[in-house]
């Protein structure tokens, strides 16, 4: 898996999540109820994580170490998202006030979604590879 691809994935995670978070914040400022906006933000950030992971891993083969590399890209993307600097990255604010606790919740959920998506995509790639060999 190329370093460039990992950097692009990390940047896409950060930028994508930041853009949708910003867009939902604008909606909230326009009057959308807080809980609805937070749910919408969580759904959109989940979409960003799934799409970026799927696009970034669908044609890279099925080597087991690639799951770790994708998780590393996700971690970098998480750290680079400006909303992480304010402890408001993902869905933690649905259950907790912004702070260290939401940072942990967001990090666990963020990494979990990316790893789960990558596992599915890479698992499918392995299955296809086995079919190809058969």
């Amino acid at each position, binding site marked *: 898996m190329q370093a460039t691809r990992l950097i692009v994935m990390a940047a896409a995670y950060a930028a994508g999540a930041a853009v949708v*978070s910003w867009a939902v*914040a604008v909606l*909230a*400022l326009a009057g959308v109820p*807080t809980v609805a906006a937070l749910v919408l933000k969580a759904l959109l950030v989940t979409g960003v994580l799934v799409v970026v992971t799927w696009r970034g891993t669908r044609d890279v083969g099925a080597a087991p170490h690639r799951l770790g590399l994708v998780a590393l890209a996700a971690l970098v993307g998480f750290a680079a998202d*400006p*909303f992480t*600097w*304010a402890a*408001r990255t993902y869905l933690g604010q649905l259950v907790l006030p912004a702070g260290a606790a939401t940072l942990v919740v967001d990090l666990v959920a963020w990494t979990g979604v990316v790893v789960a998506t990558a596992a599915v995509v890479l698992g499918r790639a392995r299955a296809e590879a086995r079919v190809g060999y058969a």
Partner: protein
Amino acid sequence: MARWRRSRERALRGDVGIGTIEYLGIVTLAALLVTAVVLSVSSARFQQHAQAAICRILVAVGEGGACDDVPGTERDPADYVPLEPCVVSSNGRDESGSLTVVVTLEGGERWVIERLGDGTYRLTRAREGGLGIGVGVGFDVSVTNDNATYGVGAYADASVAVVVGGGESYLASSAEEARRILDHKRNDETKDLWFGDDNLLRDGADWLNEQLGGSNRYEQLDPDEWFVEAGVEGDASAGVNALVVSGDAEAFLDMYLGRTSRKDGTSTDYLRADMGIGGGIQGHTVTGAGYDLYKQFTLDGSMGAVMEVDRDAAGNPVAFRIRSVTSWNPVGDESYSGPGGIDGDPTYTERVVEIPLETAADRRLATRVMHAAGVPYYPGVTDEVDVPQTVLDRFNPVDLAVELGTAAADRGYIYEQTYTTWSSTDGVNAQGKVGVELGLNLQDVESSRSTTGYRYYDGTGMVDRAECVV
């Protein structure tokens, strides 16, 4: 019934800011004292002035001895004008909700913009939350639109809740500025939630807002005054909703203790109690000619009292104020244009008596009023406990009213105002008592107030204060 209760709460809360029998004692005694003072002071003082005038005439014609000075004449007329800013009119909104699963969690937010007598405006924002528990039977599923309730249900319940609230006020030079402060403060809270209060992300959001033509001017504006309060609310109600007709009855008793602080360091502690009963029937019917006719036959009554102690910047008590608000609102009317066509706006009469707390005698008098009303202790004021005097005052409040009235007339303030409130309620309510209490209630109340009369004691009698009336 909620229409009336919300209106009642706003009526008292807009002005400031212990067992059941004591609650009733505070409300009734305050009403009795203040009403007695206000109603009697003008005639009593008029008598004194008339006697003094007659005395001087007799002296002038050589028929009398020396005349005593008329109390109060040493004060400049401007000194009688109450210091408390008067509210000419106001409009506001109150959004609240509650969720019941055995216990009830309730919360709400409200804002009101008041036009004051000096031409300025005051924006007040407040929030409250509470935890309550109740018992009852029945169910109710209803929707309220512009005060008209549609739904089905029959219920009877009683509840008690502990409520904590707080808020802040901002002074503005115009209604538009007050509205901008409200919008900016709301934006500030939303930005706090989404970006944080003070970090790079927030700086970026504020910068971008300004680049796009927005303004962050009032987001960090400090309030001119702010308040916190806590209290208990008790309520018993019963009602029936039959599609387009509803009938209900309710009684409530509330008690709050709070403090208003100002940025100049002064503060006001207050004890607020109010109670009320009401009920009636209202709904749509169809005339013989096939027209939709809305009818309302209701009777609501309430009494409230607020005891306030002003403190200077050093925390010393400087004034004692007792405020009474009463309202009776019988409505029997019908309209072809729905609830909006019913002339049912309640009118409130608010009376205030204030004395300074400059001397030991002032503090003793304030102590007597508090003890008679059932307030056992207030730091810096009720330093002495005189049980026989308290008993005497409770059985004979007239003498207490005379002393209070005399002190207020000579060195304090006496004033009275009447105002009418209007409100429009939208909401949904779903509740059921199926072994356990379950419920969901959302309500949005838009309201306004117009002061129709304002009089104060000027040393000779009650006179109008034109700048405080719409």
